[in-house]
């Protein structure tokens, strides 16, 4: 019995490419991840539960996922705005702004962290003006959100930008001819077409935020129960040679991240139901 139907495709080797894809994903993603799970197996169920639900760990989940969620939401709004401006308007320096968007990709995260911490600390360029207003950014969860927003921005911009480029002006013209005003055109015609890509950008930005370590530890202050992120907790456990504890927490992070990405993917599929 043939497992797969033969396709007469221009690109040869369905078998070879699928085989390679699985092999590659195994080496790069699956094997390291399963090692993580195996390592955790050293713990009994009770130990596992008590490790991953310890109050300090629970607080770190809240900080990490909460901040990443808020950062991704902020990026989803302002990233779309940036992408829109870059595609729709021609202004001097557009190319430079376009290049600036990628900077968070390229910058070593530690550099970003130090820079942000310097600027937003109570005697920094921006921080000194915010301090009298009662807004403290550096060394608080707010700072964590800020760092995550910084590193997540390019993900939204770069996923939404090509989709905005593809929206034909004719669709907007059609909407206007039918009597729609700017707001209706935006919310009923343009936004629904951007929505799937915004979701993708949101998911990527969120995932990046959850996994971020380098830039955050400089700005977070790392106070247990307040501004300590889960990746830092894992590092701390590793430094104390508590490998199994570290991997247990890592497993939980992995699970939550996976579930959230899955939900976003399903949402995205639903939002693109018209395409097939």
């Amino acid at each position, binding site marked *: 019995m043939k497992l797969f139907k033969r396709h007469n495709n221009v690109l040869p080797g369905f078998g070879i490419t699928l085989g390679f894809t699985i092999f590659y994903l195994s080496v790069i993603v699956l094997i390291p991840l399963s090692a993580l799970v195996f390592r955790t197996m050293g713990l009994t169920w009770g130990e596992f539960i008590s490790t991953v639900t310890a109050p300090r760990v629970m607080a770190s989940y809240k900080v990490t996922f909460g901040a990443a969620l808020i950062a991704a939401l902020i990026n989803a709004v302002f990233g779309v705005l940036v992408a829109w401006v870059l595609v729709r308007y021609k202004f001097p320096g557009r190319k430079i702004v376009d290049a600036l968007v990628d900077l968070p990709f390229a910058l070593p995260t530690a550099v970003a962290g130090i820079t942000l911490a310097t600027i937003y600390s109570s005697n920094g360029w921006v921080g000194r003006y915010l301090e009298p207003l009662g807004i403290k950014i550096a060394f608080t969860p707010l700072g964590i959100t800020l760092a995550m927003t910084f590193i997540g921005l390019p993900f939204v911009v770069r996923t939404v930008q090509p989709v905005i480029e593809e929206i034909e002006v004719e669709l907007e013209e059609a909407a206007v001819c*039918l*009597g729609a005003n700017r707001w209706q055109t935006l919310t009923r015609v343009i936004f629904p077409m951007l929505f799937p890509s915004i979701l993708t950008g949101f998911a990527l930005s969120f995932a990046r935020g959850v996994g971020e370590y380098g830039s955050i530890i400089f700005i977070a202050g790392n106070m247990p129960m307040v501004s300590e992120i889960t990746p830092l907790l894992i590092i701390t456990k590793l430094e104390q040679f508590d490998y199994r504890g570290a991997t247990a927490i890592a497993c939980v992070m992995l699970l939550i991240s996976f579930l959230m990405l899955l939900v976003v993917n399903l949402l995205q599929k639903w939002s693109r139901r018209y395409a097939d």
Partner: protein
Amino acid sequence: MSIEIENVNKQFGTFKALSNVSLAIPSGELVALLGPSGCGKTTLLRIVAGLEYADSGRILFNGEDTTQSHVRERRVGFVFQHYALFRHMTVFDNVAFGLTVRPKATRPSKQDIREKVMKLLQLVQLENMATRYPAQLSGGQRQRIALARALAVEPQVLLLDEPFGALDAQVRAELRRWLRRLHDEIHVTSVFVTHDQEEALEVADRIVVMNKGKIEQVGTPDQVYENPATSFVLNFLGSVNMFHGRMSQGKAQLSGLQVHSNGYAGADDTPAVAYVRSHDIEIDRSQIDNSSIKAEIKNILKLGPTVRISLLIEGNSEFVEAELTRDKFQQLDLKHGEHVYVHPRQVRVFVDDFQI
């Protein structure tokens, strides 16, 4: 609803898209703007719609100046060449769009919208496609939905920009016949842009032939075909043979044939061009009169019902194209390389751009 276009000019950078165009479109007519690409026909349509603004000149709807009014207020139905359907909406929602975006005060009830949309879908014969998405429809179906969507807002004017341009030949022919019937049913003043002369001749009540940002001729399909005002119009409608020659003493002396042309009695020794439509060239084995020219058959192309024959005029390096019906061709039993006589039935001579 009549449309008047008065002295409209439009320039894009250094390119003059429209120069001083004036046109009156009577209420309830189906008018074709016909011309080669880049002649300004689409620009003119978009200016009428309000999607583009004229540099100078006026647009009047029913005698009322609408030059400055916004697209939204003009109540025009616009159909785009590439349909411009909202792909994230079902067919139903696409057609309903124009009704659902109305302000609350004038928006029909959900039930009314439903009835109206279903009626329109019936009109375009796609009532069982209401729940589909545009991606699931064929090109012809999409364009019909686009038309239904434009009609939903009860436009005063229907404007179609190369509505069949993206469709294949058969669907195209079918759809234009359907558009003609539809127009006979609903009688909304309609203007459509096309570069396909056959389409314009078949569908339109009146044809506006445009070239290089100017109107060459306005008339019924018969008028523009039978009495082309300029050599451009003649050239553009149907395939034509050109004979270059000179005008002298009221006679055009052309390669091998002489034509009396009284209109140019005064013109002496000026260059002239004579045009003969391919299907106005007769082929005979013998000489009928002194307007017959001896020629050699160089090529025979059978194109379904018609046969196109290329002939080389004797003592001359000019080619002539003749179109015969298949019947006639079989009757004559013409062969490649054969020497025959060609006889132009109807010759039109133009000196510069004046007609006889």
